[in-house]
């Protein structure tokens, strides 16, 4: 029989190795494999399912969270905000043209600048015959003019080279229906017609001259 252990450890190890019960215990441990029982797998699966359900629940009940709301003081109404997408009207399209081209002088309020730029709100020139106001936008105006009972003497820029016919129609529809004005809308065809009628003209209109039109 060969020596199983190095000689230096022989006295201790031999004594231990001779213990039958210890050897049996070691043998058992060496062959032990913890088994992934059905119960363990089921509980892991259940944990994942619970996690997913909790996430779903949290997401759909997150205190009325709305990705479009950035204001912490806003409390969304019960049932959440309803999306509102209104129809795109000529006046709405005209508002954009107005904000881009007209507010420098006539202001967002449509009141103009007293003494310098005439108001559009409550102006007979705006709500009156469309023949006149279209000409003013196309070729501009120059000279003394009375608007809403006040006298002005300034220059209106011609927009014929800048704006298209439908843009002019839209912006006129906007100013004729905003700030308490209530005049019928202007059709793009009308602008096209007047643009061709006044094709050769580059000089701005004199107000007195305009008053003869559309009488």
């Amino acid at each position, binding site marked *: 029989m060969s020596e199983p252990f190095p000689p230096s450890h022989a006295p201790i190890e031999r004594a231990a190795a001779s213990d039958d019960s210890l050897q049996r215990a070691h043998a058992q441990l060496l062959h032990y494999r*913890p088994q*992934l029982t059905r119960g363990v797998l089921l509980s892991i699966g259940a944990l994942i399912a619970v*996690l997913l359900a909790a996430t779903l629940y949290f997401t759909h009940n*997150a205190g009325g969270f709305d990705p479009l709301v950035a*204001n912490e*003081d806003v409390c969304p109404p019960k049932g959440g905000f309803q999306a*509102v997408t209104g129809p795109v009207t000529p006046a709405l399209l005209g508002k954009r043209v107005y904000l881009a081209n007209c507010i420098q002088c006539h202001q967002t309020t449509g009141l103009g600048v007293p003494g310098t730029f005439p108001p559009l709100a409550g102006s007979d020139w705006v709500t009156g015959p469309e023949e006149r106001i279209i000409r003013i936008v196309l070729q501009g105006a120059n000279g003394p003019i009375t608007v809403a009972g006040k006298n002005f003497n300034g220059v209106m820029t011609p927009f014929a080279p800048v704006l298209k016919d439908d843009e002019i129609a839209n912006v006129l529809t906007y100013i004729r229906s905003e700030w308490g004005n209530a005049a019928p809308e202007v059709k793009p065809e009308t602008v096209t017609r007047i643009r061709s009628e006044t094709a050769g003209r580059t000089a701005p209109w004199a107000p007195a001259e305009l008053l003869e039109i559309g009488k």
Partner: protein
Amino acid sequence: MNNGLALFLGVAGVFAFSWGAFILPAHWQLGRLGQYRDPVDETLHPSAAPGLAAQGGEVYADLGCVYCHTQQVRQTTLTRLKEGKRAAFNPDFERKWAGDANQPRPSYARDYIQDRRVFLGQVRLGPDLRNVGTRFPDDQALYKLLFEPQAVTKDSLMPPHAFLFETRPIVGERSAKALAVPAPPGCEVVPTPRAEALAAYLLNLKDTYDYPEERRRNMLPSAAILEGDR
């Protein structure tokens, strides 16, 4: 290896847990936000940053601007006493950080969907930069600030970024990009490509488009704040 299946399931479970807790809900809540199409002129908002500005974003990250500058305009309404009465005010709006002066607005989640990296930031040692593009007229004004912040704002805490610029002898004509700062005789200070990219990035930072649906949902009359006794 013993119990490979258990190890695999355990690791998968740990990752699934954090993914389920942090990524999935955020994606469900915000992931469906897309570009908004303007009904009038049919443009898409927000638009992606152009090439040089996108490169500048990398410089912004590299220089660590995010450690002192935020990029989020808050709509936090506070109240203060004004002539004996409580009045509502918005600190970020008052500092002119909220984009268009006529239509100030907070930062919306949609503003960030095109950003390759979102530099929200946590600390405001410097001003908020989300709308810095509206506050600087051109890149020269930015270069001046980057080169020596204390020359623009006396007590600025910002470290000078002179390393983004190059002092070189003038050969032939003076460069059109040269800074209006003191330079040694016969020399000029010009921005390096990194400075140009950073300036392009900063000038591109402006959330001036007003999303109608967001505006409708975020507007709150200041009277409501006062009634709520905040």
